[in-house]
């Protein structure tokens, strides 16, 4: 009788562990996602050089009145390559305003990636020394922040944006934010 108790206890623990591993494997953000304290706070300001237009600076203030996405990326980041094509589709076909934060990258490598995988970005801020990245609480790439018309961060997404994530999560949120004034 007591043996059964031990066996059932063991099975319960084994089941929990398996469920944990399964969930962690399914969602790349699961193990790393730390809730951001910046949600509901104004997007931290920066003024960084534009990767594509010499002499230009990119700043979150430029996008006040618009709903936009800050996408943190680098050519060294495999998950960024994975989402890059879909981001390009989003900006081209769905009119999503995506601003890039090119993080810890080499200029040539970054440009090369854009040539090969397309350019989803309206502008790209260059942040080789993590000045803006630390201010935004970035701890990995890719990470994407949804900023509303008031310039307030409404959502942070860690990991590659997939069509599924867009359809169920980010897409509806952007639609809802676009309807706010």
């Amino acid at each position, binding site marked *: 009788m007591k043996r059964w108790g031990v066996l059932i206890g063991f099975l319960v623990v084994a089941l929990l562990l398996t469920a944990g591993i399964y969930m962690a494997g399914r969602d790349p953000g699961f193990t790393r996602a*730390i809730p951001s*304290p*910046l949600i509901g706070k104004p997007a931290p300001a920066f003024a960084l050089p534009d990767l594509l237009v010499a002499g230009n600076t990119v700043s979150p203030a430029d996008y006040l009145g618009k709903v936009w996405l800050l996408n943190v990326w680098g050519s060294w980041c495999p998950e960024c390559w994975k989402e890059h094509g879909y981001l390009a589709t989003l900006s081209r076909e769905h009119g999503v305003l995506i601003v890039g934060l090119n993080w810890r990258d080499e200029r040539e490598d970054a440009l090369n990636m854009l040539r090969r995988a397309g350019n989803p970005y309206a502008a790209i801020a260059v942040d080789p020394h993590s000045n803006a990245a*630390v201010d935004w*609480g970035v*701890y*990995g790439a890719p990470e994407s922040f949804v900023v509303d018309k008031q310039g307030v961060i409404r959502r942070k997404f860690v990991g590659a944006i997939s069509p599924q994530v867009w359809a169920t999560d980010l897409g509806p949120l952007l639609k809802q934010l676009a309807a706010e004034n």
Partner: protein
Amino acid sequence: MRWTLLLSLLLSAGVWAVAEVREFDSPEQEDRYRELTEELRCTVCQNQNIADSNAELAGDLRDKTYRMVREGKSKGEIKDFMVARYGNFVLYDPPVTAGTLLLWVGPFLFLVFGGWLLLRLLRRRRDRTAVTVDEAQLRRAAALLRGDEDPKA
């Protein structure tokens, strides 16, 4: 030999810490920097503080900490800065809030639960092993202990 090897391995853990040359205005500043980098957690390698971690992000956070220390910022100011961006998660010693309460109380709950389990187990075992011994059995046991032949055999 084996022990000295093991010991030297254990003691060399400090060698893993990242060597960086930093200049400070005062020993007090250096202390503040050292304490902060030991108390701030590396968010990508979650079981290390930023002093021990080789991750690039940890390097960024060390740089930021260093710059703020040189600017004369206090420990509290620098910690607040980090928490505002990365949340309480960056602190190895998170404050007790509704969200971290389980973290603080959890081990004690486990202790109480484990103690209760142990008590129950011991009590059950005692009940089961409570055996009555009569006089004849005791005499036989004493005889066996003295080394006599088993009177029953």
